[in-house]
């Protein structure tokens, strides 16, 4: 192993930019870190070079722990996006700089720089100054300069992104040739998928500081494990169906579950990926006996001709109980989109589908992603609320069938006792300890530590106990700052059979319908979408509410959730009282409300509203903040 990263973490202020990344990079490998802007990929590279100090974890280069070494002692070659070639030095002086620092004799230095300049395709330009070279040539100088002192690892930070397309592909080819020739271990950071696929021996997909998945380009494309990798790398269609007797149920369509697919429990959601180029499109249904699986009929809504291929976006009527993850379906309409690619064929030009045409859609090939479930964080405390949270959490965890963590926050000296309590809870879990239930303890203040754990662990739902009287300080602090949905429990419920989704018109209203719908789908709960209308609303506002409710109904219908809508008239006691009254009347097990995004100025005022609701009902309340 040339480079080993172990639990590498970086913070910027209180934000985690790189979150416990572990990687092993082989000798002579060309490894690509692929991610969007702000994903933390460059920070990883800078930490390897020693230009950024990690907040935790270990970096090993060729068996040597370099975590605390200054950049000078790491022996890395770094190529920057902006070249950073020394302008006052000639090209050969630039290349020789590392050798001069290492006190190599001038004759040898010169020989080495001549060789390297020939290698990067700048032979004979050694006496020039960087100003006299093009951007592409300057980047070649930077490459030669980084290779001159035979670094243990070559690190390239978006090296081609400042160059135009044609130069970029030339330089890519040169890099690949040089890397193969010198067999130097190389890590390249890029946001460009095409670049990553063209160059990489292996690719690591980085997102929001997490290492999502690392694999060869082929495996990453054809057999990704995660939804993010599946949709980030290449275009992908992802539908969520259900497993039923070794079959994948997509509404009325039934597909065999491939034997190599990751294990799924009966009746669990299953995510199906198929690439645009494996979509069958025809004027007639696929012939019986062919290996194409029929999906149904669709309407072409966009067609784009790009020379070698034709890209199509198809619109299909939504299947009962099937959720479409990618391409994202439009909110409030029971349809989903499917992307398809056909290779251009001059002979078939006349029969090429055009927008508006109806076509038959089938799958030539599909892949099953690993089951995700809903990732839960259950915060335990020695209070009635804390215990209720664990009891209700157990119920939610069973429905979510995803990984869950039991967390206790306590003083440093009481941590081992807390750990024991959690282990005891785990052992006595109703129905036996589930395999994906883990425990964690953190020292410090409850609100801050719960928020930190939620961010670090990338949880999808935090379950938290609360006081009888209202929110209590911990829950309030968490509500003011959370980006993760929070479920507040005061008294547990025996089941999650009825959900009340309270929605306002507009964006936070859509968030709670979406997330509430996901929960309802997993718990099989019946949903009432509830809206309290203002007494002085104009006809136009009333029409908007009607429209919003119809859209919510469509979203829930598409998920296969039993749903009804209800618009209540404004009461003198206010919206919170109306919600509480409805919750009592319908004996709901869970109330869902949306919240403005964390950065939004209305968040604080909104927290007061949440506290009003909580004070008027003892039922569990799920709060779904909008994410910007």
């Amino acid at each position, binding site marked *: 192993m040339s480079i080993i990263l172990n639990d590498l973490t970086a913070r910027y202020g209180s934000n985690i930019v790189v979150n416990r990344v572990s990687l092993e990079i082989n000798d002579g490998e060309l490894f690509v870190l692929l991610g969007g802007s702000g994903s933390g990929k460059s920070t990883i590279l800078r930490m390897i070079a020693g230009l950024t100090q990690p907040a935790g974890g270990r970096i090993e280069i060729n068996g040597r722990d370099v975590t605390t070494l200054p950049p000078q002692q790491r022996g890395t070659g770094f190529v920057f996006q902006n070249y950073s070639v*020394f302008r006052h030095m000639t090209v050969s002086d630039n290349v020789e700089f590392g050798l001069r*620092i290492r006190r190599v004799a001038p004759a040898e230095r010169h020989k080495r720089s001549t060789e390297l300049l020939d290698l990067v395709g700048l032979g004979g330009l050694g006496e020039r100054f960087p100003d006299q070279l093009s951007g592409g040539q300057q980047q070649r100088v930077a490459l030669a300069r980084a290779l001159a002192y035979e670094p243990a690892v070559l690190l390239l930070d978006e090296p081609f992104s400042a160059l135009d397309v044609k130069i970029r592909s030339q330089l890519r080819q040169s890099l690949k040739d040089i890397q193969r020739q010198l067999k130097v271990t190389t890590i390249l950071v890029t946001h460009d998928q095409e670049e990553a696929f063209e160059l990489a021996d292996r690719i690591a997909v980085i997102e929001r500081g997490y290492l999502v998945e690392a694999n060869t380009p082929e495996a990453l494309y054809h057999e990704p494990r995660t939804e993010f990798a599946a949709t980030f790398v290449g275009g992908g269609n992802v539908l969520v169906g259900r497993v039923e007797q070794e079959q994948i149920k997509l509404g009325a369509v039934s597909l065999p579950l491939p034997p190599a697919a990751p294990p799924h429990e009966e009746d669990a959601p299953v995510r199906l990926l198929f690439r645009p180029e494996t979509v069958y499109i025809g004027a007639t249904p696929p012939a019986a006996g062919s290996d194409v699986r029929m999906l149904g009929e669709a309407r072409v809504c966009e067609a784009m001709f790009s020379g070698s291929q034709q890209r199509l976006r198809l619109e299909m009527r939504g299947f009962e109980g099937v959720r479409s993850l990618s391409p994202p379906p439009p909110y409030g309409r029971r349809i989903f989109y499917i992307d398809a690619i056909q290779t251009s064929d001059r002979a078939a030009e006349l029969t090429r589908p055009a927008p508006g045409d109806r076509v038959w859609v089938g799958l030539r090939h599909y892949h099953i992603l690993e089951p995700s479930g809903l990732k839960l964080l259950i915060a335990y405390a020695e209070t009635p609320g804390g215990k209720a949270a664990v009891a209700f959490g157990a119920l939610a965890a069973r429905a979510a069938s995803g990984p869950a963590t039991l967390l206790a926050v306590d003083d440093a000296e009481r941590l081992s006792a807390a750990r024991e309590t959690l282990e005891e809870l785990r052992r006595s879990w109703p129905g036996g300890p589930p395999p994906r239930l883990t425990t964690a303890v953190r020292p410090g203040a409850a609100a801050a530590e719960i928020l930190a754990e939620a961010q670090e662990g990338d949880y999808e739902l935090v379950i938290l106990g609360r006081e009888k009287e209202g929110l209590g300080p911990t829950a309030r602090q968490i509500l003011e700052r959370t980006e993760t949905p929070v479920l507040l429990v005061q008294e547990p419920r025996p089941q999650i059979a009825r959900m009340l989704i309270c929605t306002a018109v507009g964006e936070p209203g859509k968030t709670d319908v979406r997330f509430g719908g996901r929960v309802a789908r997993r718990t099989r709960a019946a949903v009432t979408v509830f809206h309290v209308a203002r007494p002085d609303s104009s006809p136009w506002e009333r029409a908007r509410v009607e429209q919003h409710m119809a859209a919510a109904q469509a979203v829930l219908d598409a998920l296969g959730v039993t749903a009804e809508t209800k618009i209540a008239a404004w009461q003198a006691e206010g919206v919170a009282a109306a919600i509480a009254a409805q919750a009592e009347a319908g004996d709901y097990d869970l109330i869902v409300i949306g919240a403005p995004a964390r950065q939004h100025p209305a968040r604080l005022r909104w927290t007061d509203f949440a506290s009003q609701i909580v004070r008027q009902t003892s039922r569990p309340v799920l709060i779904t903040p909008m994410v910007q």
Partner: protein
Amino acid sequence: MNVTAKSKTTVLPPLLLILTLLPLLLMPLGAIFVFAGRAGLPGLIHTLSQPDAQFALRFSLLIAFGTAVVNGVLGTFAAYVLSKYRFRGRETLNVIVNLPVAIPTVVVGTSLLLLWGPIGLLGQFLDPLGIQPMFAPAGVLLAHLFVTFPYMLGAVKPVLDELETTYEEAAYTIGANRWQTFRYVILPALCGGLFSGLLLTFAHSLGEFGATVMVSGNLRLRTQTAPLYIFAQFEAGNIETANAVAAVLALTSFVIFMLLQRVTQQRNRRAS
């Protein structure tokens, strides 16, 4: 076609400008040389070879050189720290180091006297030890360092600000330590800014009057700089003598100015 049409219409404004500037700028510049040359070249040489004049010119050049060297180092250091490090109070410090351009030089002189003078805040402790920085060459140097400090900073800091951090980081990853990085990577990049900063400092020091007159005591053959000498001679009615030295000062400044022009032009050409 447009160009010729435009150049025809732009005859009047430049003419007006020249006419306005004539009494304001151009004629005063000429007057120095006219008066200096009244006694003819032999007279000029005679006037300049007087020991007082000789001393004043040499002293001024020496002080200007000393100021340029000290502020060259100090100003570069200040520019580097202010540009590359993030610390509390950085903005405040940035304002303070640039303040000397805004403060009247006479006030600077007064405050230096109040600090270093025999009864000043620090001077009262130094006086018993026999150290008297005021009314001595050291005092003149202190005043000039104060007054010209922002010029070096102003010339070097923008260059450093523009220099990407990756420039230094590249040197670090290559294996250069902090000193090597400064010596081989940053300093050469600063060259142009450094040179124009030095020239500016030198020129301003050469002409400094307000602060110098306060702290020097205007002692002939001891602390009298060329501008002080000119003023003294003028007051005494020796207009020719004053003008001879003034002409030398004007000439030196002119040469420095031309040099500055060339450096800036070169830098601009490089930047484009």
